[in-house]
């Protein structure tokens, strides 16, 4: 089966971001960018399904700036077959991304689309569900296990109280949770080979997608800072402080 994986270029998860002085956003100038960690898990799962003989082709797609080509090349080095970049300005909302992905799904007709459960920049956790709505496919969100069984997909999901198993008709949309797998590293020969794999660039206009949004960010602020705490010398002192100073026990 043909598979599609959506990936996002985001600020590296180890970077401590700073809010811009004019409150227009966070400062992303000269900070390290990477593939969103949940997207890495999505790519890994697709590659494993290909290695298991389930997937025949993996198309990796990103909706974002020209620089997202770097992350698409990374995905190609990890085992994706070809890449599509829907070139658009930064800071798209989830619905716009879902609409762009829907246009690619219509064209490519994958049986399974895997996305990360959320991007670590916007923390929205929306795009996969929105794509499922627009395509009218079933959704298996927060997946910690995925199994193709004939024309069905068995998904184990991480839910608040534990785990839930569901069965979905294919084609379907899956979003990955952290426990789904441990992503591999790209080897140097594979990074070199990935440079020769096809990477197509399209515009939202060419796909007939409007990126208009009903949400507008008015302001971005730093969270209220916690006042500095103290170090206590002993357990007895800790208990005393918690009882008499903080009054929480």
């Amino acid at each position, binding site marked *: 089966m043909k598979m599609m994986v959506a990936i996002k270029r985001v600020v590296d998860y180890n970077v401590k971001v700073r809010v811009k002085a004019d409150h227009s956003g966070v400062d992303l100038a000269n900070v390290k960018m990477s593939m969103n960690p949940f997207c890495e898990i999505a790519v890994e799962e697709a590659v494993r399904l290909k290695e298991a003989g389930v997937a025949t082709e993996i198309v990796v797609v990103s909706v974002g700036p020209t620089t997202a080509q770097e992350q698409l090349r990374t995905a190609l080095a990890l085992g994706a077959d070809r890449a599509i970049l829907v070139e658009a300005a930064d800071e798209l909302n989830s619905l716009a991304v879902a609409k762009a992905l829907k246009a690619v799904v219509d064209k490519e007709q994958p049986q399974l689309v895997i996305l990360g459960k959320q991007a670590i920049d916007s923390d929205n956790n929306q795009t996969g569900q929105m794509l*499922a709505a627009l395509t009218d496919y079933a959704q298996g969100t927060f997946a910690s296990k995925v199994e193709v069984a004939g024309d069905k997909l068995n998904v184990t999901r991480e839910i608040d109280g534990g785990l839930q198993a569901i069965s979905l008709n294919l084609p379907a949309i899956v979003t990955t949770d952290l426990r789904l797998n441990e992503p591999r590293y790209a080897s140097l020969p594979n990074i070199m080979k990935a440079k020769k794999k096809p990477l197509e660039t399209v515009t939202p206009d060419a796909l007939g997608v409007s990126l208009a949004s009903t949400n507008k960010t008015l302001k971005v602020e730093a969270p209220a800072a916690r006042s500095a705490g103290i170090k206590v010398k002993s357990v007895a002192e800790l208990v005393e402080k918690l009882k008499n100073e903080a009054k929480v026990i």
Partner: protein
Amino acid sequence: MTILVVADLLQGPENGAVAPATLNTVDAAAKVGGDVHVLIAGQGVGGVAEAAAKIAGVAKVLVADNAAYAHLLPENVAPLIVALVTESGAKGYSHVLAPATTNGKNILPRVAALLHVDQISEIISVESADTFKRPIYAGNAIATVQSSAAIKVITVRTTGFDPVAAEGGSASVEAIAAAHDAGTSKFVGEALAKSDRPELTAAKIVVSGGRGMGNGDNFKHLYTLADKLGAAVGASRAAVDAGFVPNDMQVGQTGKIVAPQLYIAVGISGSIQHLAGMKDAKVIVAINKDEEAPIFQVADYGLVADLFDAVPELASHL
């Protein structure tokens, strides 16, 4: 202006009871202002609806009792919600709110896309009927977002709002006959973690362990301490990945967000992702033998000590 709150229901032993997070969501709805209607969708939920009608501040409870809505499969529940807010002679819904639980996060974006509007995820405050605050970048920035959508679709971070009283209200109950069964998904089964301790996201005190615990057996020290404090037990991702404890105990950006009165971090270094899940706790205590650990930068009280000495000693003082 009328606000529809999509109730989350507990599964398993509590079968179908309204999830506590729903009460925080009703508080958020009250802050938006207007009549609050609560939707109870599920199978065999008549009794749950009766209980929901007693929630303070709720004007009406809508009950969609149908096999198609069992386990809140989004393929079936999302069209139900869309029909409720768009049908002719509708109740004039301006907002659809759900708690940012796994069910809420699963269903609501599907609703938003079907309505062709953007969703606002995990709001922590209501500035006005169309403007909300929400954390981004793992809680390292707070965005103020305005929605121009005719129907605003929003998930609510429960730790940002106080729960309303579960008793004292007297809402009318209205049955919804519609059955939307997409037939594309099926519930197979679930494995719920068993715990006698308070629920992590609702607990007043949380004791969490990290990689420093060494192994799963050592968590017994935390359980002893937690039982003396009436606390819930959480964990960092490192502890979950190492197999010490199940993943539903994970606190952080990808796990649960907690804001208890007291959070005791034991053997946890304090990565950005972990802090995202607990830095709104009123008082944070860190017990770590590495005095350079980042957790000490947010801890109100830090104790540099071996946890295997400090935790049992702490328990003995209580």
